[in-house]
């Protein structure tokens, strides 16, 4: 593999230009700006993808007027939202009301830093990587909760309460799936996790328990990203718009974008944990020196996972709140616990498949 020299070049050029400390700070700022850009573009692209996919599911075409195959539709929508007035309720708790969207974006961005787009494009590779993502993305619930509470609207409040219940329950499942998979891997660092999958993706290495873990992850992940069948937080037909009922314009767009970025993050974790991150399947492109090939594979896998999430969304009806809890505490949690033990036993007995 070749190293992408462009990042090193920028790094060296910056350090040659100014003292090391300021260059370091500037570098951080640049990276942050780049991630903000990725955040926006990714969000818009995913919204477009969702609408397009929904169109095909529903015997329609989806947005196809603005730009080639409707690609600029969401940009036009975003422009509209930017130009809109920010309304709010008089009786809202204004500070929290204003702060809530930023909570959500900040946490989404923090989790984004951990995403390994490819071997080189990986901003923050710490040794507790997966754990960090899991904990940071659970802070996002605070934003939703604040939005629901601060709006001073009963529908928002019910939405917010539902989030609390839902997130606490399903964080547990996500965490236990991560535990299951790290039992197999023996590390939490994302780059190492991916490197270890050179001998076969974890879903193959861990076969039965890993597949089970993947299924649980998909269910819990849907719940984490508040999508159908777990979209009780927004529950259009019950609560109007749920926690963001009182938000308008760009504040609403933040929620909207963050929702899709969260979807991307969840899918990325799935890809890292089960499908070998940016690794090519069976190493078919390992010998070839194609730039950005890791990004390509990573993107492809994430898109596939996102598509499955979308498939769920456009097929299933919504759960009721008590059924949601029943599913987690009565089904997913016990299965998950057994699954950890099975995985541990397998690792201990060396029953994993490696090429």
């Amino acid at each position: 593999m070749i190293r992408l020299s462009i990042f090193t070049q920028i790094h060296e050029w910056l350090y040659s230009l100014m003292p090391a400390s300021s260059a370091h700070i500037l570098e951080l700022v640049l990276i942050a700006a780049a991630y903000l850009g990725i955040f926006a573009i990714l969000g818009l692209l995913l919204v477009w993808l969702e609408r397009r996919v929904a169109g095909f599911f529903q015997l329609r075409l989806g947005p196809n007027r603005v730009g080639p195959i409707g690609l600029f539709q969401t940009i036009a929508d975003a422009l509209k939202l930017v130009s809109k007035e920010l309304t709010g309720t008089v009786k809202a708790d204004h500070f929290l009301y204003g702060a809530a969207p930023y909570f959500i974006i900040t946490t989404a961005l923090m989790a984004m830093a951990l995403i390994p787009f490819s071997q080189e494009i990986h901003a923050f590779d710490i040794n507790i990587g997966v754990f960090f993502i899991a904990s940071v993305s659970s802070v996002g619930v605070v934003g939703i909760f604040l939005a629901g509470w601060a709006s001073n609207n009963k529908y928002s409040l019910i939405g917010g309460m539902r989030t609390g219940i839902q997130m606490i329950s399903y964080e547990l499942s996500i965490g236990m799936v991560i535990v299951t998979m790290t039992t197999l891997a023996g590390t939490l660092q994302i780059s190492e996790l991916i490197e270890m999958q050179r001998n076969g993706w974890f879903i193959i290495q861990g076969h039965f328990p890993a597949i089970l873990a993947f299924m649980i992850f998909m269910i819990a992940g849907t719940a984490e990203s508040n999508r159908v069948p777990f979209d009780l937080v927004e529950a259009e037909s019950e609560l109007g718009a749920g926690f963001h009922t009182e938000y308008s314009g760009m504040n609403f767009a933040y929620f909207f974008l963050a929702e899709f970025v969260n979807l991307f993050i969840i899918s990325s974790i799935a890809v890292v944990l089960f499908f070998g991150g940016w690794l090519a399947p069976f190493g078919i492109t390992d010998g070839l020196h194609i730039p950005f090939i890791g990004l390509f594979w990573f993107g492809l896998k994430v898109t596939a996972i996102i598509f499955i999430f979308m498939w769920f969304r456009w097929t299933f009806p919504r759960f009721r709140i008590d059924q949601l809890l029943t599913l987690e505490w009565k089904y997913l949690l016990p299965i998950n616990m057994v699954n950890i033990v099975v995985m541990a036993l397998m690792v201990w007995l060396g029953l994993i498949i490696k090429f």
Partner: protein
Amino acid sequence: MEDFLGENIKTQEYFLNMGPQHPATHGVLRLLLKLDGEIVHNVDMDLGYIHRSIEKMCERDTYKQIVHLTDRLDYLSAHINNEAVCLLVEDALNIEVSDRIKVIRTIMSELTRLSSHALWWGVMGMDIGALTTFMYAFRERELINDIFEETCGARLTMNYNVIGGVRYDLHENFVKRVKALLAQLKQKLPEYDKLLTGNVIFRKRLEGIGYISKEDAIAYGLNGPTARGSGVSCDIRKIHPYSAYDRVDFEESIFTEGDSYARYKVRIKEMWQSVHIIEQLIDKIPEGEFRHKTKALIKLPPGDYLQRVETARGDFGVYVHSDGKKSPYRMKFRSPGFANLAALNKMAKGLKIADIVAILSTIDIVVPDIDR
């Protein structure tokens, strides 16, 4: 719960305004909910947001003019509503309509029922959260609407029935189109089942929800598919047959569980029965007049008249108190949705907010029908 929380924490009942602008209330119905957390303690309703006082307008209009007003009651069974008024006047004046008219009216009524139930199925899915069902239902509904548009001239408020017959003769493409529709329905209705009926989430959302016993159903005046879900045999097409219903063979769809899922199954079965009825009639539409001449100004003899028909929502009744003038002295539309909605509190007490949405869907309300 209260014991567990003890004295320090107290739960408080709160009040939630569901509607008049709310996605689940299918228009401008306003529900006043008393909630404890998510649990519903009491449901009350406030109506009249789309009240047009059609009953008062009828006291001003002639009988011929009244017919088109009934389109606007339950707009999803516009044809059947028209039929009720026309049958009432024909009955009062002893006009015997030809077989052709009867058969055309029956086919049209069943197509209306199919289109209404198709819409209901789509919206039902949407209310429960499966957004895709809506477009699948509209695929079939579109075919029916095309049939209506070609023969009647409009898609929703068809105004096809006139006193003494129907407005136009059947279009030459009618039989062809209906047969294509039946073929498609037979292919697609099983798909409905696979997508929603069998779905475990969907079943769990409906089973045991909104239970109402047979006795309560009768006492609360439930009618139509809602009552048939509780095991009440109340199909007007069976008990007081009108038009050509006495000569077709069909089964009254009754389920005895009394919950939302039973009501759902009733409507799905009714769609199959409608297909069955149309199949029997479509090949043998008798020749004859499609419209009998009537007097320019129709006057009913003094007296009380009542005509009941089975719309897609249930037992629709038109009651006329006539004093012999050109317009009715008092005209009352007994709307099926109004009676069905009255039992909502009974059904929804103690359940959750999400269940109210499910129950509202399965009693299939149309707000203009309730408000009149």
